[in-house]
């Protein structure tokens, strides 16, 4: 029975890991949504593979622990089949910006009604610290000890140009704001993308830098696309620059839907279609 929100699965994140804060925030949002009337069984969590993905084991909520890089696509299928569900993806930066970047961009383009939380610790955590598309240029891991890494991707900028209707950035050490962002993301009708700067205690502890660089812009209007573009270019995931937190962009746009959700489909329609088709060929 769904009682506690945390399962009894043993938590195996490192001490000090930013995932705890994300779990905490997400848990609180789920409880808040429940309190506001969305039954928990209508929420579904889909995860990729990586440290972040353990969320699927830890939260006592419908979940699918999917493949590295494929959670957003899997989640799209859920949204298609049953648009009544609130679908949340917990994905990693390796997961969503490398292996699965296509699915992320296409879900944004289509405006699939789901919320994607990128646990952007800027390393492959679970496979022991290799560089990801958002690792800072000078980060040399065991898989690139020499090669000077190329420019990092700027995910909020990419998502903006892919047509994303909700682009936000959070920080694992700003739990209160994070909670709000996740709540707003889930409440947004359409595709919500939240890049969460997450501390990786073992391979990429950027606590000091982030603490110094992050800020919440005071008079930013999230409906202003150009302003959003300017904001996301302040920080290029290369260690310098101010890091704006909060909803960077939000717009209303029709959401993705395909045909008749399966619960509304009628078997008789198929039956009679088949019969009509056969008769038509007689």
């Amino acid at each position, binding site marked *: 029975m769904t009682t506690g929100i945390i399962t009894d699965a043993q938590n195996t994140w490192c001490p000090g890991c930013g995932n705890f804060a994300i779990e905490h925030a997400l848990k609180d949002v789920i409880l808040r949504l429940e309190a506001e009337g969305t039954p928990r*069984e209508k929420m579904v969590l889909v995860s990729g593979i990586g440290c972040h993905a353990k969320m699927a084991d830890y939260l006592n909520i419908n979940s699918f*622990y999917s493949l590295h890089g*494929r959670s957003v696509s899997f989640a799209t*299928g859920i*949204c298609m*089949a049953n648009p*009544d569900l609130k679908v949340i993806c917990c994905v990693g930066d390796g997961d969503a910006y490398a292996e699965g970047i296509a699915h992320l961009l296409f879900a944004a383009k289509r405006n699939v009604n789901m919320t994607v939380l990128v646990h952007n610790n800027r390393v492959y955590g679970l496979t022991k610290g290799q560089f990801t598309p958002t690792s800072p240029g000078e980060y040399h891991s065991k898989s690139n000890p020499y090669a000077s890494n190329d420019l990092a991707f700027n995910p909020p900028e990419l998502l903006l140009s892919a047509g994303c209707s909700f682009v936000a950035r959070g920080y694992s050490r700003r739990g209160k704001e994070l909670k709000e962002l996740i709540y707003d993301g889930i409440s947004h009708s359409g595709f919500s993308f939240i890049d969460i700067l997450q501390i990786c205690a073992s391979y990429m502890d950027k606590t000091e830098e982030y603490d110094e660089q992050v800020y919440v812009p005071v008079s930013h209007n999230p409906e202003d696309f150009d302003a959003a573009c300017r904001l996301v270019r302040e920080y290029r995931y290369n260690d310098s620059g101010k890091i704006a937190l909060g909803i960077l962009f939000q717009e209303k746009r029709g959401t993705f839907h395909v045909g008749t959700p*399966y619960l509304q*489909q009628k078997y008789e329609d198929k039956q009679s279609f088949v*019969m009509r088709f056969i008769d038509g060929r007689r």
Partner: protein
Amino acid sequence: MDECSVLIGGKAGDGINVAGQTIARIFTTLGYYVYMYYDYPSLIRGGHNFSVIRASNHPIGTHRSGIDILLAMDLTTLRRHQNDCKRDALIIYNSDSVQSDVGSGIPLKRIVEKNGGSAVMENTVMIGALAFALGMEWEEFASVISHEMHKFTEKNLEIARDAFQMQEEKREVKRIHQSPGIILSGNEAVSLGLLSAGLNGYIAYPMSPSTGILHFMAAASGETGVQVFQPESEIAVVTMAEGMVYAGAKTAVGTSGGGFCLMTEALSMAGMAEIPITIVLAQRSGPSTGTPTYTAQSDLHFAIHAGHGEFPRFVFAPGDAQQAFEWAGHALSLSWQFQVPSILMTDRVLSEGVYTVDPEFLPAITPVSVPLWEGHDEYLRYRDTEDGISLYASPPLSGSVIKGNSKSHDERGISVDDGMQIASMTRKQMKKIPLMKEAVSRLNPVHVSGNHDSDMCLISWGSNAPLCREAANFVGIKSVQPIVMHPFPETEMLAATSRSRMTFLLEDNFSGQLADICEAHGIPVDIRLPRFDGRPFTLDQLIEDLWGLAE
């Protein structure tokens, strides 16, 4: 004649496929069973396309080499296929573009232009001429045209009538007083079979020769409600489809070689997470991009073993439209009954070939029945049961959580790495295999025909089955076709072949994939008949070979 083969050829864009289907329809009206083979290279305009429509007084599913009537829309067709014609064949050619001293010309362009039609209607001229040559009544023919040509019906009728009146030479076929049934392509049959079983979603990325299913489903989505979508890649296709399945929707996907490769990671996930997904794998000539519009049966081993790790699955390979309808339904149903992936293999010849199907013999249309959870205690997605099947549920399930997992997991779906738990989940999943075997045993997994008493046996699978069926009948030997390829119907195959002194196995690949599987199950294959040039055998070739071999 109680048998007639028509070849119509022209350029891509001339509508040779549609023309072929109309011709098939004409023969149906005249009481014939038909089969059509359609041959085209991978291009959009130009090149050389042709359809061979064979009509017969008995059920068929293959074409023959000798052509009775050749309809040449261009010079290439005449040049290439003149030699395939029987001595007394009727040849009708496009006299606007071809000069010939054999056959009778008909001016396609001139007739179309006279009636103010467009270039794509030139094939209507040919069909009009053919209808007359076959000895049809105008009214009868007109109703075929009205039926087949929904667009510009009037114009087409006018054009057809001019041609009908202009044609002089005849090659009359006798009218047979029977209603053989309707014509269906393999892809149509697969689509209808899936719909009959209650399909909710079809996701695919275009890839020959599976694309026909996507187009059919998309067209049918309005009336049936089926959710049809073409996403960004085959990886998206299969993961999206599996997401739909998690949410409870009966979903299938379709693809071919390279697209199937891209689905193997998620196929393995379907194994671990017990996701009932149905994959239509339409084989074509490979490896790699290969020859996209030509046929092969070279993915059998791959389909059986695709995906890392071990998990139960079904692999079916129907051989004609009738079987395609039936087994597409079974694929979806059995997949859900056992919560395992199922793969429905077709090949280019079956997918795009056209067959006569008698609707009377189609299985009853019944929806998949899913063993659903209705309990009130805690829901366990992977509950270990006697038969290894955990009752299904999809969100929202009031008061319960549903946890699917691609990792090794416990009954709740929570990840584990303890050895005992890993092994016990494997055992749970593997318990299904004997039951899956039993289930397919009840569905006639092996089709036997021809001379049951013969001590010679011709084995084949997929689209070669109707060919071998007919050849075996002709030569007086037995024909055996496994339709279930995995779990291999060993008992039935052994029973079917046990009294054979000599076994032939014909398949469209180099190495003899089914032959290897048969031999591994103790069924000796004496002579392998491999073909790997992308083309199907014709009946006459095969019969000749068999005469030679049976000596």
